[in-house]
């Protein structure tokens, strides 16, 4: 009797968690396996499967300079965007946690850029970094510097895109960090004050260590977003052939290269190969993050 009851309970439990597995199978596992299958074929988007070629696409990808360029671009923009983003977000969170007047207003305010439509952000930043009449170049002119063709160079286009990413995500991260900050016991700060610690010292010795787990979480999320970066660089290249990310692909990310190969180049098999390699790269980076996380934890 007891056994059947247990079995029933288990059955019910499985039924309750089954939606997750169903959804995962449909939206996670199947695309993953199917993409791997497609990546081993020469497969044009409109005509369909042509022939099985095994790992030929992977071999080609390893020596594809456009792919490696896109890889460098992706990580370059990622580093350029994420590091200042998290630093500023931490400082912002600390500021929002102090006794500000109309605190809720400021807290809501930092989230606003994140709510704005990406397309609108792209258009505005496109205008800011426009070659001929952009505000960025106007400001440079005001301090006596030459105008920059922001889209023409690697460094300048990366900088502009990183700014776009930062503008959107800094406030979002600041709010997550703020939530973490509020769980820091007030006594710690009070004790530090009595000991005569400066605000800066309190920030370094209390806030940052207490925020560590949250910082790691935020970093991982930003990493995954950064590796998949697509919309901002796409919008930064308005007009014909936006997907190529600049005339020489100077700000084309891996995700953009994937879409270009699939839909402009009609090479579905090759694009699937890129998708799989991108997946592996993300898994690798996540694993490195996890290792770092363990080390940092054990350091406590």
């Amino acid at each position, binding site marked *: 009797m007891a056994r059947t009851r247990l079995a029933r309970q288990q059955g019910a439990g499985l*039924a309750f968690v*089954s939606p997750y597995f169903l959804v995962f199978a449909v939206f996670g596992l199947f695309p993953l396996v199917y993409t791997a299958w497609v990546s081993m074929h020469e497969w044009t988007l409109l005509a369909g499967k042509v022939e099985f070629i095994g790992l030929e696409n992977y071999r080609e990808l390893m020596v594809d300079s456009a792919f490696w360029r896109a890889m460098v671009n992706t990580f370059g923009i990622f580093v350029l965007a994420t590091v200042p983003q998290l630093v500023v977000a931490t400082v912002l969170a600390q500021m929002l946690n102090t006794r500000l007047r109309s605190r809720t207003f400021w807290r809501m305010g930092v989230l606003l850029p994140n709510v704005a439509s990406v397309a609108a952000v792209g258009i505005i930043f496109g205008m800011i970094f426009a070659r001929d009449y952009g505000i960025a170049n106007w400001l440079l002119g005001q301090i006596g510097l030459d105008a920059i063709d922001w889209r023409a160079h690697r460094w300048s286009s990366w900088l502009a895109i990183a700014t776009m990413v930062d503008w959107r995500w800094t406030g979002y991260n600041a709010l997550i960090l703020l939530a973490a900050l509020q769980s820091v016991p007030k006594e710690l700060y009070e004790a530090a004050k009595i000991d005569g610690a400066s605000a800066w010292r309190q920030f370094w010795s209390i806030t940052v260590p207490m925020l560590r787990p949250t910082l790691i979480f935020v970093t991982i999320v930003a990493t995954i977003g950064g590796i998949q970066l697509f919309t901002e660089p796409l919008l930064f290249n*308005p007009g014909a052939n936006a997907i190529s990310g600049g005339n*020489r692909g100077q700000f084309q990310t891996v995700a953009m290269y994937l879409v270009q190969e699939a839909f402009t180049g*009609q090479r579905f098999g090759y694009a699937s190969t890129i998708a799989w390699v991108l997946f592996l790269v993300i898994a690798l980076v996540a694993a490195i993050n996890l290792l770092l996380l363990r080390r940092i934890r054990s350091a406590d």
Partner: protein
Amino acid sequence: MNRTRQFAATLATAIALGGLAACGGSGSSDDGDDITLRVNLFGKFGYAEAYKKFEADHPGVTIVETAEGDLGKYNTKLTQQIAAGGDAGDVVAIEEGQTVAFLAAANKFVNLQDEGGNDVKDRWLPWVWDKATSADGKTTIGYGTDVGGLAMCYRRDLFEKAGLPIDRAEVAKLWPTWDAYIATGKKFQQGTKDKKVAFVDSSTNTYNSILMQEGDHTYFDRDDELVFDDNPAIKSAWDYSVEMTEADLSAQLKAFSDEWNAGFKNGSFATIACPAWMTGYIKDQSGEANAGKWDIATVPGGGGNWGGSWLAVPQTSKHQKMALELIDYLSDEEGQMLAFEAEGRLPSLPALYDQAALKDAKNVYFNDAPIGQLFAAGAAGLEPVYLGTKNVPVRDAVENALRSVENGEVPPARGWDDAKAAATKAAR
């Protein structure tokens, strides 16, 4: 416990049903009820009047048009929908550069030869039909709507400031050849005092015009082999464009970008190679403030074709019969004439070229330019240009290389090598 199980089973069923319903879509069929035809286009086809007439002749039919402004985006989306068997609408437009690519998926479209297409095929310029027909000649996926035709649009006010003639016959005499066009450009740059005004909008538009003028294929021969080195037209078009860059004639505005659009409004450039369909675009972007400032002259090097479109009915359409009637109407004389009047799209029907309504047509916005004569005169003699399956990725790659030279990112000699390498890669 039983209740829990029941609940779980219900939940699982609900989820399964939800999944099925999502896949099935909503089904309404052709059974004499009201029909909504969805027409999926890019840019402006000028069909508003034609729709009204069609709806009046077919009670119960409503036509809804969606138009994507960006051709690249439109092509990506349409390719996705067609490749995945998704719902692309009842009527879709296919641009010239994409016909060969979509012919690879000819079975995803209604074969117009099975639907009376062979009876009407003589109405178009002969190659218009062939371009939407598979290599074996058995399948035709699209009815032609318009052809490119080529002319040169120019700003009268800017020409006047630079001390050049402004009368269109005189202007045409300035540039019988592309060499003469460049020479005129140099004169213009010397004459105009305004550093913010350039002779031409960008090198790529000129490049494409020259390339499409020279012969019956561009990057690919009729066996779909890349002939980047063997087709002298490519190098010749490239060299002209680079020469313009080196003479500093270009405003370096990337086609269809915000800055290009602003360039029309601000008068940043004095000439732009304009296929017939471009006149509508120029008018929209330049705005009423510039009405009458633009004019149209013949293009250097004689006629030529750039662009043009076809209308097709995807197999997924639930109202195929009515959709076929609609594309038949839109691609026939009345439909094409209405589109010509609305957006300047040059008909692909030779029968119209002799009709007074087209021959004597003038475009008020372009200082009453006789667009009928300018475009139709050359249209009858247009030669078909074969564009391969991979034409779009190769063209994109070469345009990028050309722009990198134009913007000074890359020296011209290296630009050509870049273009060749990129074209070879894109052709795979």
